[in-house]
């Protein structure tokens, strides 16, 4: 698992590479919550292009990020979902609660 954060204008992007499962979702959760709670970023965009597999603990980390972003009045967005990651979010019926975009450009340009 490899996680890199970078800045693009007023957006902070979190690039995640590898599977997000019980083994490494705590690391993803830690970084997302750190950006939102401590750095108080205005827009957090999670790049899932490099994520082939995500389980319920990974989904739970994203849901927690979404809930914290709402409490901090910041935006939380996802892009680059693989078919498998999209299926898991659809099965858990949580896909509709997230702002999901196809590409980085679309996420950055979202009003």
């Amino acid at each position, binding site marked *: 698992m490899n996680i890199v954060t970078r800045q693009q204008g007023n957006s902070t992007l979190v690039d995640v590479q590898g599977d997000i499962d*019980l083994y490494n979702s705590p690391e993803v959760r830690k970084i997302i919550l750190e950006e939102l709670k401590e750095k108080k970023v205005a827009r957090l965009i999670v790049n899932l292009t490099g994520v082939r597999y995500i*389980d*319920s603990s990974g989904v739970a980390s994203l849901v927690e990020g979404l809930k914290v972003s709402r409490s901090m009045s910041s935006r939380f967005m996802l892009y680059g979902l693989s078919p498998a990651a999209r299926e898991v979010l659809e*099965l858990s019926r949580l896909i509709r609660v997230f702002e999901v975009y196809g590409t980085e450009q679309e996420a950055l340009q979202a009003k």
Partner: protein
Amino acid sequence: MDYAVKLSFPSDPRYLGVVRGAVERFAALTGFDEEDCRWITLAVHEALTNVIRHAYHNQHDQPVELRLRERDEGMEVVMVDHGTGVKQEEMCGRELDDVRPGGLGLHMIREIMSETQYLPLEGRNELHLFKKRGSKTSVGE
């Protein structure tokens, strides 16, 4: 018929990827299409994470056994642990309209598999899962 594949491994999340690989390939061998293979793999993965978290309370050195076989035009999975058993009435999952982390795994297993049976036995717990070929997993509403 006996189980074609038996895997024994410790309750360490590092092995989740290894187990997923074995289950996905066995499902393909049994005749499931690529999408169903992904679903079955997810269900078994979620069952294993439940064992690690709830039966063994995140202890990573406890024994888990996984048995796989083909039967009745489908695939049967049995997962055995020796941890804390859960009563059937406590296995409730979460309300899907309640947007919060946690409680998703059990919901996923039930949505994916054709049959799910949990048996808290003397000294061990067994989870029996069966997926029939052709029984598609529906996502969304």
